[in-house]
């Protein structure tokens, strides 16, 4: 195949000779940082892990071929440069030659090579590997080693901003005991080695995960000597532990603890926003919910601002449609529907419902009674409160809501495979592309697809397709504004809010930049002044 290769980015952010050295940025090395997590990680590798606690650890231990820097730009990591074919289907990565894997006890560190990249891709995509990543990389047709320090990925089709996908973490070929696929039984998932700024040293009897600075880190030794991840079973105790100096940082502060922490000058509260929002989503296969007036009635029936103020200490923003307010796609002209229970009742009546003797709205002998399914993994005090409030708000307009809390996997099966639900409470989190196409396109209806509610509209479909095809940013903005307005009107979800996450940390930790999803992406740059190291 004749292929014109266009080198699109050849900038070398780091000299290939700059290995195993201090950063020489004038900031001191030393000190330790312990941070509190509410919960324990199930695994510590980047392939099988599925929760934020693990993700944060893997961010310290591993690297991708490329990374996203503090300015949101794609930056070289394990790959020092790359080429993309003009048709956007072939990506060739040229790997650094100065990267070493963390050494296992008694062994010399081994070099990182193309074999590790191919190994990672293959093990990630193996049918017997249980990994949430697999679905994200199905767009890759094949991965090939060209030589020890170059690999080639061929895509099934060109995709927008494909480079960002190559941030997946690379694991060593000599890591897992099973060379074909990775399960949670493999010792590697509890005792991984990577190439990243910190080396997993041990897990203590108290389940603290101890990470030590990688002296050979290819971007220069991280400033802080030691990170310790400390699990807590109670959020209040975690907050008190920080306030009495047992830990230095909480990665995600309970909203109700924000005023107390803010009231203490020793700590910094740092917001970090993911483009995410919470919603009640409806199953439009239920004929009673197929009428948009019914769904609109739900939106009028709930007082979203009150819930946000009381349950989340006002730490968020009410939204009007399918985008987060911090995204570029949000339609600023669409206002959230007001809390108006009377309007909700009017809409239900307009849709043919009349109140039954028990106060529940009925139509054709069928009660307007919903089963709301909530994943237990999501369950927290605040979620419980939101669900109760939803039940009460809807009861006030004659809608009965029965709540079922389900284990995460069972919930996903009910919602995404069986479509056995009337309503769900959940949140979506997006990257900067704010891509909602998989949520509402009719081609995404089906088992394990994201359009779980079965929403279908030819007009929405065609707008989504048009948005995907265009390279004109303004056109895409225009389409998204339309999508926002139409989906707000159609109300396949009751759009609720975007919440603000806060990290809290002691003032002694400096230059703290936080990645909105991965958190520790820039932790090698953090430092503690010598006078405050202990």
């Amino acid at each position, binding site marked *: 195949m004749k292929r014109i290769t266009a080198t699109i980015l050849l900038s070398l952010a780091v000299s290939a000779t700059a290995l195993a050295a201090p950063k020489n940025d004038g900031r001191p090395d030393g000190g330790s940082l312990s941070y509190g997590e509410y919960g324990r990680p199930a695994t510590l590798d980047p392939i099988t892990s599925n929760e934020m606690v693990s993700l944060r650890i893997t961010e310290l231990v591993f690297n991708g071929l490329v990374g996203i820097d503090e300015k949101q730009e794609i930056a070289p990591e394990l790959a020092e440069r790359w080429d993309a074919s003009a048709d956007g289907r072939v990506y060739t990565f040229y790997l650094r030659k100065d990267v070493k894997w963390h050494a296992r006890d008694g062994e010399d560190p081994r070099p990182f090579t193309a074999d590790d990249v191919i190994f990672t891709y293959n093990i990630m995509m193996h049918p017997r590997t249980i990994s949430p990543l697999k679905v994200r990389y199905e767009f890759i047709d094949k991965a090939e080693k060209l030589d020890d320090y170059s690999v080639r990925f061929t895509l099934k089709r060109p995709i927008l901003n494909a480079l960002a996908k190559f941030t997946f973490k690379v694991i060593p070929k000599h890591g897992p005991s099973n060379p074909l696929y990775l399960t949670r039984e493999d010792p590697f998932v509890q005792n991984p080695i990577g190439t990243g700024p910190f080396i997993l040293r041990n897990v203590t009897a108290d389940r603290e995960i101890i990470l030590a600075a990688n002296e050979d880190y290819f971007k220069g030794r991280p400033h802080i000597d030691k990170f310790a991840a400390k699990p807590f079973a109670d959020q209040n105790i975690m907050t008190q532990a920080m306030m009495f100096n047992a830990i230095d940082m909480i990665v995600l502060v309970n909203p109700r603890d924000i005023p107390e922490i803010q009231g203490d000058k020793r700590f910094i509260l740092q917001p970090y926003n993911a483009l995410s929002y919470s919603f009640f989503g409806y199953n439009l296969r239920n004929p009673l919910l197929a009428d948009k007036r019914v769904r609109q009635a739900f939106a009028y029936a709930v007082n979203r601002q009150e*819930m946000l103020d009381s349950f989340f200490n006002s730490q968020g923003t009410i939204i009007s449609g399918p985008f987060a307010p911090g995204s570029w796609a949000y339609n600023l002209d669409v206002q959230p529907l007001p809390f108006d229970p009377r309007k909700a009742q009017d809409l239900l009546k307009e849709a043919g419902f009349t109140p039954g003797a028990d106060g529940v709205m009925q139509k054709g002998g069928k009660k307007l009674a919903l089963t709301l399914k909530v994943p237990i993994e999501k369950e927290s005090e605040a979620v419980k409160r939101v669900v109760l*409030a939803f039940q*009460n708000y809807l009861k006030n307009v004659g809608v009965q809501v029965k709540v079922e809390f389900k284990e995460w996997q069972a919930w996903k099966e009910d919602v995404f495979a069986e479509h056995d639900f009337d309503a769900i409470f959940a949140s979506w989190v997006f990257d900067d592309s704010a891509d909602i196409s998989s949520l509402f396109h009719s081609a995404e209806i089906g088992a394990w697809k994201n359009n779980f509610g079965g929403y279908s509209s030819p007009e929405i479909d065609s707008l989504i397709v048009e948005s995907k095809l265009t390279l004109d940013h303004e056109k895409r903005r225009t389409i998204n504004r339309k999508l926002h307005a139409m989906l707000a009107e159609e109300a396949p979800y009751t759009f609720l809010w975007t919440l603000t996450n806060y990290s809290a940390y002691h003032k002694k930790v400096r230059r703290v930049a936080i990645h909105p999803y991965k958190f520790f992406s820039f932790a090698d740059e953090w430092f503690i002044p010598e006078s405050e190291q202990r």
Partner: protein
Amino acid sequence: MCKLGCWALTCVLLTSAWVWAAQTADPPAADTAAPAGEDAAADAAAPGEPPAPAGVALEYLRPLTGIESGRNDSNPVWSRSGRLIGFERSRGEKKELLVARNDGSIVETIYFQLSEGSQEPRFYFPGVLEETSYNAGIAWSPDDRRLVFMSNGGEGNYDLYLRELGGKTARLTHHREKDGHADWSPADGRIAFVSGRSGKGDVYVADPGGAPPRRLTVADRPFLYPQWSPDGKRIAVIHGANENHDIIVIDGLDKPQPRLTALTTWEHDDLRPVWSPDGKWIAFYSNYNEHNDPKIWAILVVAADGSDPKSGAGLAARVVATDVVPDVERGPAWLPDSRRILYVKDDRLEYNPIRLVDLRDGSNHPVPTGTQVNHDLACAPTGEFAFRAQVDQWDQIFIGRLKE
């Protein structure tokens, strides 16, 4: 029967449920079982029906103050006589303290700011210098006339302050590290608290007379939430780190080296000890459970003299309630008879109902408050109890009394 070393909760509950040794100071024996266990009453009800009343009824239940939106009330603390009740009120980032009579009338509101009483001329500083003060953690003096609380005075440093009801506020502690978790001895004027001045949380005792606080604990891990015994001779506290805290009792307080006795030593998280009113028992939360799930909590009761097992199946047998919502600011709520405990059950579908466990027979009863998302239970010596519950999205304080 359980084999030696059997820790499984089901095993404990089904075959060796601990029955309270009523009227005796002897520690309860794990094998003096009666066939009454968790949810005995609820189990009798048909599926889908509300549990039948099982001997627990309310004499009354009412919101302490008017139901109001826009603020969340929390942490009710009865005065030692039970005539007054203090609680916290959050409006946005501000947290103030209120003191009320049990008829709901407000005695006073405390919103302490260090700039109070400043001699600066009265100027209006629009939007520039308004301080936000955070006040919490009430503990009452034995005579009901004073209370101690934690405040940052709007200036970013938590210390303890004394409030004379109807009078002035005076500083009790002054240190750049946090002071908090105060508890006033029921016997005298001593106040136990936790301070970060040692570099981590340690227990100190202060005397309102003004002598420097005395440090009681020295260890490499923090101590939190000290609680005086009813006779004022001992202090229960939690000690540990991360998700593993143990219950410790400090005695010999008058000696140069107080003695620390661990009541629990296992790997589970044991939080917020509360003395029974007769001083013989200590109830606390623990995340011990058969699933080894660190977020599932139980209440255990052990002898305060340390004679009960400190770990293993022996301690597991001291579980009196499972699936509990841990409210570490308050702890399990003993009724005055030292035989019954009110607690909040972690029941998703009933939204944290209130339950009563009777330690005499191990029976467990719903308390028909009809309230939802309950928290922060606290019992007065008079038998009244208080808690917070969600009403129209906002937390209100309720008070009630059980029918005897």
